[in-house]
């Protein structure tokens, strides 16, 4: 597979380490009253779609950036990639 790194262009997927669903960006508040329930959901449950999946890849043998790659899990077609940090910052912006 080839991953379109937003800064470095098409890179071989072997340069990356895969983590999983990009929902892992949305870490619950560990000090909230319902933290145990929300963390159980966050840590263990997955949508696991057959179709477009937003997922985390780490450019381990590259620039060490975490990417969010949009990929179809049925066809493996890649629809785009963003820096996870940008996405995380943007979602902070929305939250505020």
């Amino acid at each position, binding site marked *: *597979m080839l991953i379109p790194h937003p800064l470095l262009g098409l890179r071989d*997927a*072997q340069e990356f380490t*895969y*983590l*999983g*669903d990009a929902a892992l960006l949305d870490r619950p508040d560990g000090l909230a009253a319902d933290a145990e*329930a929300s963390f*159980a959901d966050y*840590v*263990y*449950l*997955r*949508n*696991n*779609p*057959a179709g477009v*999946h937003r*997922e985390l890849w780490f450019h381990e043998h590259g620039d060490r950036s975490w990417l969010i790659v949009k*990929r179809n*899990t*049925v*066809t*493996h077609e890649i629809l785009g990639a963003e820096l996870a940090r940008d996405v995380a910052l943007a979602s902070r912006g929305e939250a505020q």
Partner: protein
Amino acid sequence: MRFSGFRVLREALTGHGGWRPLWRNCEPQPSYDFVIVGGGGHGLATAYHLAAVFGQSRIAVLEKGWLGSGNIGRNTTIIRSNYLLPGNEPFYEFSMKLWENLEQELNFNAMVSQRGIVNLIHTDGQRDAYRRRGNAMLHAGADAQLLSRDQVRDLAPFLNFDNARFPIKGGLMQRRAGTARHDGVAWGYARAADLLGVDLIQNCEVTGFRIENGKVAGVDTTRGHIGAKKVGVAVAGSSGRVMAMAGMRLPIESHVLQAFVSEGLKPVIPGVITFGAGHFYVSQSDKGGLIFGGDIDGYNSYAQRGNLPVIEDVAEGGMALMPMIGRARLLRAWGGIMDMSMDGSPIIDRTPIEGLYLNAGWCYGGFKATPASGYAFAQLMATGNPHEAAAAYRLDRFTRGYVIDEKGAGATPNLH
């Protein structure tokens, strides 16, 4: 019809005209007491045990393709009960005991072959871990043996003992482990279930669940609605997709695992050999093909096909372990979709929806579990009580913190 050497002889002499279909082609009835979704190994074994052990009737198995088209038809055929944790080892040993009597029970030769499995040891730390595991196996009533380097060498002199990056220092052997003919297992259960009156319905895909007042009432399928008092889902690989139709999210990701077979070669590999340090394991079939595999590709996938890096990685492991296979050829590579669970262990449990049961999360260990999984799932569905060997496989173990994590990899499915 009973299969026997005599029967084969008689048919051979009379032109094979007397054989009968291995199972009927059934039309779906309007309703059943038990509907099993998934005509793979686990689904067929569940239906068989419901009828044969728990005396149930009005049972249907719904299969979206052909019987045995899931992971039972695309695995590396290994059976073993060499687990570490108390949540797992008794279950797999229960399965092993069922394997040992499978053919006589089903009247079908699935070629259960107990030629042994050896996990190679390369470091002192690994030896400690395997010693712990071997003792856990013995304490659970299974067999295990710690082999020295020389004993491994006697067993498999063709391994790389002289020029290895990770020298072989011994092995953990389970003699009763081995292989079984994967398709034969599916067919054996299908035929036996059919003879007990189970309706096997192929080309029948479930498209939705009928749930009324929190209770399951049946399933919608590509062949119409089928009513059911109880529905058991055994569709590993597709569990996420199917259970989403019941509104459930699971502690499971779907991943592709590739496996490989070489061209036929005169048999030289005694049993199953696993090379953990090199992501490689191998056995040789009764036809002569080397059957081998390694790690999952590592990304979520429903594509039933993998990519080149893993093929290279597995071949590298194979060449490092046994450089005498260099001139043999890879004949076929294939990919199966695994239910990779969050702790690497399976789920056999009720769901929050009454009457809906789930058998899922087998990672790449589903084949060896087939008999026990079918038995335990049938018991749960028929009696409401979990089988004691499968009692740990609960859905709520994740929220409550009773995970069964053999590798200690945590909630990262591609590391299990």
